[in-house]
């Protein structure tokens, strides 16, 4: 395994259990008894009792003495010159304390602009013009949220509307320039390529079959049920800024705040308390956060800002918006030989995507997917439009969903085109298990996989061949039934420091474990759970390694004053990075524990062996010291010359990304009268390597599948030609309810990651990535005989009904 060479020296020593030999199983491995509850146990979550009793602590629950409230005046135009802002009437209102404009921020040290995570710039508050609908124009600070809401109505802004540019292809013509603050008067932001153009072109020249399709992956919105918010509390006497913030990456945000504001970093504390869902939407720094912090600096009082849902749906947390043109080549035997892709990325008015710095199109070049092919070439161009900045993840590892949707749709189109069953076509074209570690034509090194095992299992679970027979019979009767497959490969766990950073900060993550004298422990992490259950899974990892009961380990994240520095939770990176750091920190502790045990038992270290929760003398297991005995001794009876205490910290730099995968099969029935797509069955076989807590993994998969169903059938942020958002409330932007969500049928295979210390890969996003093409493929499969080759998501009844009508199926 060449990746292992990239480990730091101490990590190589600690990385026991890492190997290239990764056979696939389907049994969850359990090594500890229930009272310890290490890996593999279906442990009920430790964090749940407080949530179940209404005792969670979310940002809007924070109430500080003398706290003021902020509300934001937003632009009614997508593109307009600002002639003047008159806040005098607002300032005269009882309870209004201040109004903050772009001019005020400029005077405070050029805070009216801020850097984005992609090293672009974004307005915090405008001075000359606005560039998207619902853009922050100025903010009112008042003594209550009602007064603040009243006061924003009393701010008079004189706008001079300019032409909007909503379509990215039109934006490429540069007739309307979105960012005239830039030296180069163009909307084109960047061009990015991966793969080998000449080799790919040559393959297409010789191909027996080429299929081509245009796909649009529309703009969608993460819509965590908690919106974004902040309480900023500047203490003038201490020159200290305490911030409660809906943040998936509190440490990175602290550094950004320090760099932007000039406040020293040790005088900034960011607390990310309980977070009501993130899904990528709480990774970027939005203007509201900066204004709120400035408001506290200016007033010297705590200031709370909580977005309304309509603000949230109109101004931030947008994902996708990729216009894709893809071509796939195959030889005469139906083997995929090449892939050629051109993509236009509609970034909105700033490139504020949450990608690692070197990857403007994220990890999109994973788009050769699960298939072995000779060559591929990918081009992506980023372009500004007069829409809010997009590019957050929507429960996805940096553009992997766009990549997977494209390759899985193209694979299906090719299979149908050459008349092969889509399952057989996939089985023929998969990267074989013996090809791992697999070097992809776009430069990835897949760590491990067994794609045929996952697909075969999914096919067995719903008797695929019988369903094909049923489909043929139904088609003969004129009924519309479709079967769709998605055999996706994910790429998560960013990432190795040589390639992955955000604003220069390397994408390691961290864990710190302290064991107290009585054998109880505190474990702190640089990540931040938003519902993933870290308090339980991290405790189980530490329990597995050290034999401490998981219930004896308090897990804490989100307070930058106490947690070790880390890059946060998104892109399914927590288990691959901080989870690995927990293992490494535990193994450092174990190394010291062994010395203490040898001292207590008066034997040499080499005479000892580890057994679940104790060191015992080889051949004499009754001579043993438990981890609790050792912890007590670490503070009361440690060897002379050894430091007291039993704790360790680890900053884990992963040697490679991890590559979870799976095969999903969806069965749909289409109502010929209404065009409605009904998901009859959905089987999901996921492989995320070794499983830490099966209950939590199932929960992650269920939730991810519903968030995959959502953009496939329901969700899209729509703009009119003037750039007005037509999907700005939950009455217009439809999240699936319990009625729409199918009964998910789960299966699993387990192919461990060879480079992760416990063989885990991460799972939170696989289903969101894998599900949409399974559903889209099922719909097209039901309609292919009518001449339908592709339907863009969301596949609404209206779209299907129009297709049925155009093909004479319904009238």
């Amino acid at each position: 395994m060449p990746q292992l060479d990239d480990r730091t020296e101490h990590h190589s020593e600690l990385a026991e259990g890492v190997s290239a030999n990764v056979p696939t199983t389907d049994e969850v491995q359990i090594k500890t008894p229930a009272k310890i509850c290490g890996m593999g146990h279906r442990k009920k979550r430790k964090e749940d009792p407080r949530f179940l009793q209404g005792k969670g602590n979310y940002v809007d629950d924070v109430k500080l003495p003398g706290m003021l409230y902020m509300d934001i005046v937003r632009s009614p135009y997508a593109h307009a010159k600002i002639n003047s802002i008159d806040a005098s009437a607002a300032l005269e209102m009882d309870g209004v304390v201040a109004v903050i404009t772009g001019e005020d921020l400029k005077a405070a040290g050029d805070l009216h602009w801020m850097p984005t995570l992609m090293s672009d710039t974004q307005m915090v508050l405008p001075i000359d013009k606005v560039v998207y609908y619902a853009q922050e124009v100025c903010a009112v600070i008042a003594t209550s949220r009602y007064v603040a809401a009243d006061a924003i109505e009393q701010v008079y802004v004189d706008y001079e509307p300019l032409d909007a540019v909503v379509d990215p292809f039109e934006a490429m013509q540069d007739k309307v320039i979105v960012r005239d603050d830039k030296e180069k008067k163009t909307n084109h932001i960047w061009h990015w390529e991966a793969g080998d153009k000449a080799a790919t072109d040559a393959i297409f020249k010789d191909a027996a079959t080429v299929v081509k399709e245009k796909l649009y992956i529309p703009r969608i919105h993460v819509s965590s049920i908690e919106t974004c918010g902040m309480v900023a509390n500047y203490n003038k006497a201490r020159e200290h800024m305490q911030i409660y913030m809906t943040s998936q990456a509190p440490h990175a945000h602290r550094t950004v705040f320090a760099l932007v504001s000039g406040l020293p970093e040790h005088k900034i504390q960011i607390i990310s308390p309980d977070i009501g869902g993130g899904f990528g939407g709480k990774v970027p720094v939005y203007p509201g956060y900066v204004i709120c912090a400035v408001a506290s600096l200016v007033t010297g009082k705590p200031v709370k800002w909580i977005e309304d849902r309509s603000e949230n749906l109109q101004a931030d947390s947008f994902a996708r918006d990729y216009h894709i043109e893809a071509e796939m080549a195959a030889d005469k035997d139906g083997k995929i030989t090449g892939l050629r892709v051109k993509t236009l990325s509609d970034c909105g008015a700033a490139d504020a995507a949450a990608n690692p710095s070197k990857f403007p199109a994220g990890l999109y070049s994973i788009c050769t997917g699960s298939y072995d092919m000779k060559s591929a070439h990918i081009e992506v161009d980023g372009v500004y439009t007069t829409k809010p900045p997009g590019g957050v993840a929507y429960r996805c590892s940096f553009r992997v969903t766009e990549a997977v949707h494209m390759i899985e749709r193209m694979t299906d189109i090719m299979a149908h085109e050459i008349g092969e069953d889509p399952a057989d076509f996939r089985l023929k074209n998969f990267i074989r298990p013996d090809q791992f570690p697999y070097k992809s034509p776009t430069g990835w090194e897949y760590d491990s996989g067994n794609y045929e095992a996952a697909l075969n299992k999914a096919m067995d679970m719903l008797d695929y061949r019988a369903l094909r027979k049923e489909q043929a019979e139904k088609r003969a009767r004129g009924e519309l039934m479709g079967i769709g497959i998605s055999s996706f490969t994910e790429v998560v766990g960013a990432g190795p420091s040589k390639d992955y950073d955000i604003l220069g900060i390397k994408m390691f993550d961290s864990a710190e474990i302290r064991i107290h004298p009585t054998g109880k422990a505190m474990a702190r992490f640089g990540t931040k759970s938003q519902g993933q259950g870290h308090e339980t899974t991290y405790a189980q990892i530490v329990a597995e390694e050290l034999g401490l009961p998981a219930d004896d380990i308090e897990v804490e994240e989100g307070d930058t004053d106490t947690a070790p520095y880390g890059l946060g939770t998104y892109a399914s990176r927590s288990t691959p990075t901080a989870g690995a750091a927990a293992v490494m920190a535990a193994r450092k502790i174990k190394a010291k524990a062994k010395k203490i045990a040898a001292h207590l038992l008066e034997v040499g270290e080499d005479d000892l062996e580890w057994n679940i929760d104790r060191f015992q003398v080889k051949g004499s297991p009754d001579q043993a010291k438990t981890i609790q005995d050792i912890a007590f001794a670490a503070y009361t009876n440690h060897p002379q010359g050894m430091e007291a205490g039993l704790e360790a910290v680890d900053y884990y730099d992963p040697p490679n990304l991890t590559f979870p995968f799976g095969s999903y099969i969806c069965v749909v029935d289409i109502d010929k009268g209404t065009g409605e797509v009904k998901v009859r069955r959905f089987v999901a076989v996921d492989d995320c390597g070794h499983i830490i807590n099966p209950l939590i993994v199932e929960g992650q998969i269920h939730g991810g599948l519903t968030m995959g169903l959502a953009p496939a059938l329901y969700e899209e942020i729509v703009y009119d030609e003037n750039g007005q958002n037509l999907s700005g409330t939950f009455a217009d932007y439809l999240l699936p309810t319990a009625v729409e969500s199918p009964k998910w049928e789960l299966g699993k295979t387990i192919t461990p990651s060879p480079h992760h210390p416990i063989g885990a890969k991460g799972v939170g996003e696989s289903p969101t990535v894998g599900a949409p093409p399974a559903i889209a493929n099922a719909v097209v499969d039901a309609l292919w005989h009518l001449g339908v080759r592709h339907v863009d998501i969301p596949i609404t009844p209206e779209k299907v009904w129009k297709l049925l009508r155009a093909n004479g199926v319904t009238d």
Partner: protein
Amino acid sequence: MSDHEITLTINGESVTRSVEARTLLVHFIREDLSLTGTHIGCDTTSCGACTVLVNGKPVKSCTMFAVQAEGAEVETIESLAAAGKLHPLQEGFWEKHGLQCGYCTPGMIMSAKGFLAQNPNPTEDEIRHGISGNLCRCTGYNKIVEAIQYAAEKLQAAEGGE
């Protein structure tokens, strides 16, 4: 804006407070009474995170004024484990992993409580429709449905045993 004195029962306790006429019940509960278990997730009565029981019926408290609750019995999530023991619904959500981020959970549980009071022995389909006014972004709902089934069985058994 006129102020009004209102008296209502909240989680079994009588409270009297002066409120602005326009104060929403959810803000009254969260801010005046500091019961922050009831959450706000939207401004269009769509998400149900703010669901409480008013005289036993589930109500989205972001769409009711506090003054409209004059004389009413209001129950919030904080009342459920008042005796120190989790309610069967709380138990069910814990056992079946019916929650992740926990933000929609109080509203979901209060909605389910009101629903089960009306339909103590529901089918799966009835449960799905019964909670269709409550959005959850994390769980995919399957495990919430199982949690409510668990609670229904447990409540039925307790009823039968009395």
